[in-house]
């Protein structure tokens, strides 16, 4: 894969050896022949996809193409109907233990933030570590504050989500996922519900995260982010993966007609 600093924006990236890690072969997330039906409607058709350690994969495509369903299958918010999903060596099965094991190691950020409105920011962030990781309060609080500093809102720790702006809420949601110290992170359209002026603060946070070497799968409509941060771009349409490539290759020289059509509509 080629240099990923082709984004053109002010986002020079250095030091993440996308090539090396992706080629390392230690797959973090792998989907093989995954199908998903909603009633009679086939939402995903024969999905094959690997995400390597420390790789950032951005999934784009028109609405209804199955992007969200795809990443929701990875942590079993949707149950896939056939095929295999393996996350960090654990195969997703109906066994609740395998599901819990994968969820523990896979953070997720939602379009609508989904913060818990009856808990303070700090309680939101410490809930998982305390209940699932079984850390004591002191350790959970310490890690939570560290994560809140990382998303640059430690001063909001004692507020309730309702008192924060959308961008701040989404950054808290990122901190909440990070506090579990997951091995990979899933982002389901994290900026789609935000006012334009708040999108940047969330994207910046995600970019920092990518630079730190987090394995990330990001469903988004932010093409600038895809160009600047992605190691690979996956284009989906009608429940199928149409094209995969590096951002440069993908945005400058798409191969498939469907991809060209999509890019012509949005760029």
């Amino acid at each position, binding site marked *: 894969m080629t240099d990923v600093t082709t984004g053109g924006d002010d986002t020079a990236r250095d030091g993440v050896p996308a090539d090396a890690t992706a080629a390392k072969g230690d797959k973090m997330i792998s989907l093989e022949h995954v199908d998903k039906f909603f009633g009679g409607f086939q939402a995903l058709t024969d999905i094959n996809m690997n995400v390597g350690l420390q790789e950032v994969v951005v999934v784009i495509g028109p609405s209804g193409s199955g992007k969200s369903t795809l990443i929701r299958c990875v942590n079993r918010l949707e149950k896939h109907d056939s095929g295999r999903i393996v996350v960090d060596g654990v195969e997703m099965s109906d066994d609740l233990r395998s599901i819990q094991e994968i*969820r523990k190691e896979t953070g997720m950020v939602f379009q609508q933030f989904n913060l818990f409105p009856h808990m303070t920011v700090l309680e939101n962030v410490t809930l998982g570590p305390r209940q699932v990781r079984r850390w004591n309060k002191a350790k959970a609080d310490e890690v939570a504050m560290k994560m809140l500093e990382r998303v640059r809102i430690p001063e909001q720790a004692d507020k309730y989500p309702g008192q924060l702006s959308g961008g701040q809420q989404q950054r808290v949601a990122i901190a909440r996922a990070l506090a579990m110290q997951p091995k990979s992170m899933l982002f389901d359209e994290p900026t789609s519900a935000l006012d334009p002026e708040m999108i940047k603060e969330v994207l910046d946070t995600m970019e920092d995260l990518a630079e730190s070497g987090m394995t990330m799968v990001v469903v988004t409509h932010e093409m600038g982010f895809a160009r600047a941060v992605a190691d690979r771009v996956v284009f989906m349409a009608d429940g199928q993966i149409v094209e995969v490539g590096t951002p440069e290759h993908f945005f400058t020289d798409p191969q498939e007609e469907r991809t060209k059509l999509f890019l012509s509509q949005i760029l």
Partner: protein
Amino acid sequence: MSGGPTDVATLEPTSAPEPSPPPARRVTPREWVRENLFSTWYNSLLTVVFGALIVWVIFGVARFVFVTAQWEIVRVNLTNFMVGRLSRDLLPRVWGGVGVLALTIGLLTGLSPVSGGWRERVGNLRRAGPLVFLVVVFLSLAGTATPWFLTLGTVAVAVAGYGCARFLPAVIARRAGMVGVVGVIASYLVVSGGAGPSYAAFGGLLLTLFLALGGIVLSFPFGLLLGLGRRSTFPAVRVVCVGYIELIRGVPLITLLFMSGFALGFFLPPGMSRPELVTRALVALVLFTAAYVAEIVRGGLQGVPAGQTEAAQAIGLSPLRTTYLIVLPQALRNVIPALVGQFISLFKDTSLVTFLGLLELLGVAQVILEQPDFRGAGLQTETLMFASLIYWSWCYSMSRASQRLETRLGVGER
């Protein structure tokens, strides 16, 4: 509402021109009346008509209460209204129980986490205004000085509890809810003497409170489980819960009470003794209320967005923890008004146990009409009015307590 223009200025240190305060208008009572009551000819007409109506009603009620009514029947039977046929030897226990409750309320008031000092703490007790009014009415009817002294003693105990609250060890102080629960249980044990179902001897207001409080305490968890069960992923659980709820909701409460009161014997194996009548009445009330609580809880559960469950699952919470840490707190918070409404209904529905021959508040109000001194004197209005006053002051207090709970939990804010 609060915060004059100076407050705004301190909050926003911008160079924007300071808004001049709106011109203060002094409205004389005369002007107010003219503007609000007599602005047009039809407004004037309405004011006159309804003013006359209101005066007439108030006058009628006042004349009845202070002139016509013969409160002797209530005065003589005050103790019956309170405890029914409970042996008079046990009255000290009842007062003891009241004392324990007073102590608990005092402690809780002292422990309540408000910033405004004692004024605000005690101010919160204004919610109990209707009950204070009730006590005043009782005392004004009391023929002897004893109730006065005992009431003063009770108040003194409450004040002492308030004063002692700060000396409680932090371990206890942090668990104000537990203090309340222990206080109520202790109060019940003091009254009942702790042994056996001695509540069977309760009567009057004491029985009403026992049935209402027991009904609330037992039907809430039961209804909660039914409501959760109705949304269970296990079909068997779901079917049982739906069946129960729909069966109970399809039957009038009075038939349930009659069944538990008179028909239960047919369903029990021979040789098994029937439980006390009060127990059976309580069970019927609990079974009935639980079905309604279940539906209220279900409504609350449906109001919690699916994203909340998903977020909890995504960080790895088990289904059980997701329910009681994330979903239930939000669901219950949103249905407080409906729940309290149901419990107010329950409070008033306890009057139906009269038809089983139990002498709760309404039962006493009926029975004393047959006393030799008052038979045929046509004093229904007096006794029913007095019973109504007692029901009203308790229910209205519950309603106000619910409002306070809503404000504290921020219902309506998102």
